[in-house]
C-alpha cells in the first residue's frame, strides 16, 4: 500500500504533523513548568480533558481489537479475518496513545512503574494500570508477526503465530476487566458524577459500550483508510457487523433506562436541566439513531450510511465516557473547568501521532488484504499521475507543517512560561473624563460612573476618573480619584489610600480585591512620558547620553523630575540612582512585610509609640482575628 503522491493523503498527513508539532512544544512546557502552567486543572477539577478524552476515549477506541479478535477466533467468524490486523493495530496504537496521554497527565510520570511493585488491590486505578500494561504487551505480541513476517526472524515469527490463540483469549480476558474497570474508577466518586450517569453497574455499562465501540471503530477506521488510500472498503464484511451492533446498542439502551428506573433516578430524565438534555443527546447519537439506521436497512444500501453509523456510535460512546469522566459532574462540583488550548492541542497531538504511526505501518507492512487497494487508481493512470515529485515530497510538506505548528505553539504560550515570571504592568490606565451620575444621597455619596467617550458633548456631571484593573482581567473599574481625595481631606490624605488602608473597612482583607498585592509591578510607563515630553525630540530629556544604549538602568532618575513625589513613598519603591533601578515596585505584601513594616517598627520604638501605627498589623489587618498581636512578636504593653 504505497500511494504517497495522493493529495488527500498528503493534506491529511500535513495536518497530523501540524498537531504533533503544536503538542511537542506544549509537552516541553508541561514538563518544565508543571501542570498548572499549561492546563486549566484546579483543585476542584483534578481530572480534565487528558483523562476524559485521552485515557477514557483512547481505551474506548482500542476496543475494536478484542471485539474482532473474539469474533474471528472464538466465534469462528472467518469472514471477518480481513478486519483483524487493522483492528489489532488500531488497538495497539490506541493503547500506546493512552500510555503517552497518561505520562502527560500524571504529575510524577517517572513513578509510573510503581503500581507494578506496590500492590494496592483495593484501588480501581491499580487494576486499570495493570490491565493497560498487560494488554499493551499482549497486543504487541499479537501484532508482532506482521512486521516480523517480512524479516529474517522466521522462527520467532512462527512461535508468535502459534501463540496467537492463547494471546487472543488472554487479550479478551484483560479487555473485559480493563474496559469495565474504567467504569469502576468512578464508583468511588459519587459526588462527581451526575445521578443520570452514576450507577453501581458502571463497570457493566462500560463493557457493553466497549463492544459497541469496537464494532463502530472498525467501521470508521476501515472507511477512513479506504478514502485516504483510494482503496475499496470491506463494505460486505462490515455490513455483517451491523446486526450484532444493533443488538448491542439496544441492550445498552435498555440496561441504562432500566437501571435508572430501578435506582429511582428516573425523575432526572425530564427535569429540563442541561444534564438531562445531555443525557438524551448522548442516548440519541450513541444508541437511538444508529439502531434506527441499521434496522431501517440504510446501512445495507449505502456505504455512507454505514460510515455515518460507525461515526455516531464512536462519538456517542466516547461522549458517554467523557460525561462520566467529568462533564456530568460540572454542575455537582460547581466548577468552571474548560480545557485550555494547550490541553486540547496535546490531546490532538497524541492522537495525531498515533494516526501517523498507523499510516506509517500500513504503508510498509501487510496489514490490509491485498487486492482491495488501488481499485480506483487503475483508471487514472495518465501522464499527470507520474508527474515529478522530488524525493521525500511528503516528508517535506509534513515536516514543514510540524515546524509551523511548533512555532505557533511557542508563540501562543504565555510570556511568563517562556521567559519566567515578569512584573505585571501597572493596573492603572487613564485618566479619563467620565459621566458621573449620583444614585444615592447617602453619605458618602455613591456615584454611578459611566465611561462615555462623548462625555463632553453629552454634558452632565463630568468627572476626571482613573481606570483601575486590579486583578488584570481586562475589566476596568472607574475610580473617582478626585472625589476620594476630597472626601479624605485633600492632598494631605494621600497616604490614607496609597497605603491601601481602605476607609471603614472591617470585613474584607485587602487581598480579596487586590490580588495584585502579590505581584511585582512595573510602575513606569514609557509611552506616556514620550507623549507628555513632546515626542521623539524629547528622548534626550531622560536619555541624556543618546549614544549610550537606552535602558532603564542608564537614564535620568525619576526623582530628579518628580521631586514632589519623593515624600509619599516613591523613594521607598524605586531604588536610588546608580543602584539597580528597573522601576519595578515590589508587591504590596513584600513592601509591607519586608520594607515598610521594619522601618515603621524601628521608628515607633524610638518614639515610644505603640498604637496605632503601621508597625502593628492591626492597623491594616482590621478583622477581629487579626487584631490580636501575633505570638511571634512581643508587644510592649506599657
Amino acid at each position, binding site marked *: 500500500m504505497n500511494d504517497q503522491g495522493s493529495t488527500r493523503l498528503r493534506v491529511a498527513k500535513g495536518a497530523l504533523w501540524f498537531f504533533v508539532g503544536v503538542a511537542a512544544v506544549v509537552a516541553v512546557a508541561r514538563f518544565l513548568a508543571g501542570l*498548572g*502552567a499549561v492546563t486549566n486543572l484546579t483543585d476542584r477539577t483534578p481530572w480534565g480533558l487528558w483523562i476524559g478524552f485521552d485515557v477514557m476515549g483512547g481505551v474506548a477506541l482500542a476496543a475494536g481489537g478484542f471485539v474482532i479478535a473474539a469474533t474471528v477466533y472464538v*466465534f469462528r467468524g472467518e469472514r471477518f479475518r480481513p478486519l483483524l490486523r487493522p483492528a489489532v493495530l488500531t488497538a495497539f496504537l490506541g493503547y500506546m496513545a493512552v500510555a503517552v496521554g497518561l505520562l502527560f497527565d500524571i504529575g510524577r510520570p517517572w513513578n509510573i512503574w510503581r503500581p507494578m511493585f506496590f500492590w494496592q488491590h483495593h*484501588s480501581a486505578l491499580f487494576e486499570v494500570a495493570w490491565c493497560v500494561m498487560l494488554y499493551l504487551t499482549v497486543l504487541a505480541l499479537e501484532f508482532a508477526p506482521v512486521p516480523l513476517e517480512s524479516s529474517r526472524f522466521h522462527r520467532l515469527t512462527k512461535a508468535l503465530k502459534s501463540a496467537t490463540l492463547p494471546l487472543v483469549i488472554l487479550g479478551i480476558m484483560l479487555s473485559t476487566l480493563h474496559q469495565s474497570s474504567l467504569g469502576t474508577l468512578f464508583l468511588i*466518586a459519587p459526588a462527581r458524577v451526575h445521578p443520570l450517569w452514576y450507577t453501581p453497574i458502571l463497570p457493566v455499562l462500560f463493557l457493553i459500550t466497549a463492544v459497541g465501540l469496537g464494532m463502530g471503530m472498525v467501521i470508521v477506521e476501515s472507511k477512513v483508510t479506504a478514502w485516504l488510500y483510494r482503496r475499496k472498503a470491506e463494505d460486505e464484511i462490515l455490513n455483517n457487523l451491523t446486526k450484532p451492533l444493533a443488538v448491542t446498542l439496544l441492550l445498552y439502551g435498555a440496561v441504562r433506562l432500566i437501571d435508572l428506573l430501578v435506582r429511582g433516578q428516573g425523575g432526572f430524565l425530564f427535569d429540563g436541566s442541561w444534564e438531562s438534555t445531555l443525557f438524551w443527546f448522548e442516548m440519541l447519537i450513541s444508541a437511538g439513531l444508529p439502531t434506527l439506521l441499521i434496522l431501517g436497512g440504510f446501512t445495507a444500501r449505502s456505504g455512507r450510511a454505514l460510515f455515518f453509523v460507525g461515526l455516531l456510535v464512536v462519538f456517542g460512546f466516547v461522549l458517554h465516557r467523557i460525561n462520566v469522566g467529568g462533564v456530568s459532574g460540572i454542575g455537582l462540583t460547581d466548577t468552571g473547568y474548560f480545557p485550555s488550548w494547550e490541553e486540547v492541542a496535546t490531546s490532538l497531538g497524541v492522537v495525531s501521532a498515533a494516526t501517523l504511526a498507523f499510516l506509517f505501518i500500513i504503508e510498509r507492512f501487510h496489514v490490509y488484504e491485498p487486492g482491495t487497494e488501488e481499485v480506483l487508481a487503475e483508471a487514472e493512470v495518465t501522464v499527470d499521475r507520474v508527474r515529478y515529485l522530488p524525493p521525500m515530497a511528503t516528508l517535506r510538506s509534513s515536516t514543514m507543517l510540524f515546524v509551523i505548528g511548533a512555532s505557533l505553539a511557542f508563540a501562543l504560550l504565555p510570556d511568563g512560561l517562556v521567559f519566567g515570571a515578569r512584573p505585571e504592568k501597572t493596573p492603572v490606565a487613564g485618566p479619563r473624563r467620565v459621566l458621573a451620575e449620583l444614585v444615592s444621597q447617602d453619605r458618602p455619596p455613591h456615584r454611578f460612573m459611566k465611561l462615555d467617550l462623548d462625555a463632553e458633548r453629552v454634558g452632565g456631571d463630568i468627572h476626571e476618573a482613573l481606570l483601575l484593573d486590579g486583578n488584570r482581567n481586562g475589566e476596568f473599574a472607574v475610580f473617582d480619584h478626585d472625589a476620594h481625595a476630597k472626601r479624605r481631606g485633600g492632598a494631605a490624605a494621600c497616604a490614607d489610600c496609597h497605603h491601601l488602608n481602605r476607609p471603614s473597612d472591617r470585613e474584607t482583607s485587602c487581598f480579596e480585591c487586590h490580588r495584585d498585592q502579590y505581584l511585582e509591578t512595573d510602575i513606569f510607563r514609557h509611552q506616556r512620558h514620550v507623549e507628555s515630553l513632546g515626542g521623539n525630540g524629547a528622548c534626550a530629556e531622560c536619555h541624556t547620553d543618546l549614544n549610550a544604549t537606552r535602558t532603564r538602568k542608564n537614564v535620568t532618575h525619576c526623582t530628579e523630575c518628580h521631586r514632589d513625589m519623593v515624600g509619599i513613598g516613591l523613594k521607598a519603591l524605586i531604588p536610588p540612582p546608580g543602584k539597580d533601578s528597573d522601576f519595578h515596585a515590589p508587591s504590596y505584601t513584600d513592601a509591607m512585610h519586608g520594607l515598610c513594616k521594619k522601618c515603621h517598627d524601628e521608628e515607633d520604638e524610638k518614639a515610644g509609640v505603640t498604637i496605632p501605627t503601621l508597625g502593628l498589623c492591626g492597623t491594616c489587618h482590621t478583622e477581629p482575628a487579626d487584631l490580636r498581636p501575633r505570638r511571634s512578636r512581643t508587644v510592649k504593653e506599657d
Partner: protein
Amino acid sequence: MKPAAKHHWAILTDVTKCIGCESCVEGCRGANHTGRDQPWTWQNGVRDLSASRWTTIDRLPGNHYVRRQCRHCVSPACASACPVGALKKTPEGPVVYDASICMGCRYCMMACPFQIPRYSWDSAIPAVRKCVLCHDRIESGEAREPACTSACPVDATIFGTREELLKVAKQRIAANPNVYRSHIWGEHEAGGTGILTISDVDIPLPNTVPTDPLPERTWAALRTVPFVFLGVGAGMVGLRWLLGRRDQLRLAEEKARAAEASAEKSEE
C-alpha cells in the same frame, strides 16, 4: 492488627468557641513549612484550602467560624483509591502521604468526598498537599499534639482519641442542648471521620457526602475481578471449542450428504 477506630487520633472542633483568628492556620503553616498563600485565579479568595494552606476557616453568616481540613476518615476513600499506596491510613489514625511513591494520578482528589486534597499545580515536581495531623512530628516526639490545636488560643479545637472526643462532644451537647445542634459532624459521615465538629449552626458539607464508607462501593466491583477474569477465559475457550465442534459436525454432515448424493448419481 489495626487498633479499633475508637483509639484513633482525632480533633474535636467546637464552632461555638472559635473566634476565627486563624491561629491554627498560621500554626500549621509554620510547622509544616507550607509556604505563603499564593492566590490562584480560580480560588475562592486566598481563604480556600490550597497546597500552601492545609487548614482554613470558613466564615458562615453571623460570625460563625468553621474549621476545614483533612478529616482523616476511618475508612478513607483517598487511601483506598491510591494505586501505589502513597496515601495510607496509619494505625494511629492520620492519613499520611509519601511524595516519593506518588505518581501524581490525582485519583485521591477525585475520590475524596469532602474535596480536601490539594495539588501543587505550579511545580514541575508536584505533590498532593493536605493535613497529615502532624503525624511525623508527634511520632518523632517533636510535638505532643498537632500544630493547629496547640496554636488555638481559646481551645476551640482540641486533640485526643476519637473515643474520648466523641464522649466530650456528647457531654457538651447534653450540657447545652439549647445551644448545640444535636449532631456530631464526623461521627457517621463517610463512615466516620477523625475530625469531629459540634456546632450551633448547620455545617454545609460538599453536596452529597454519603454515610457509607466509599471504598466499599469500589470493592463491590473489584471483589469480582478474579472470578470475571477466569470466567471470561473459561467461557471463551469453551465457546471456541463448542462453535468449532459445531462447524466440524456440519462439515462432516455436508460431506456425508455430498457422498450420498454422488453415490445416488452413480447408481443412476
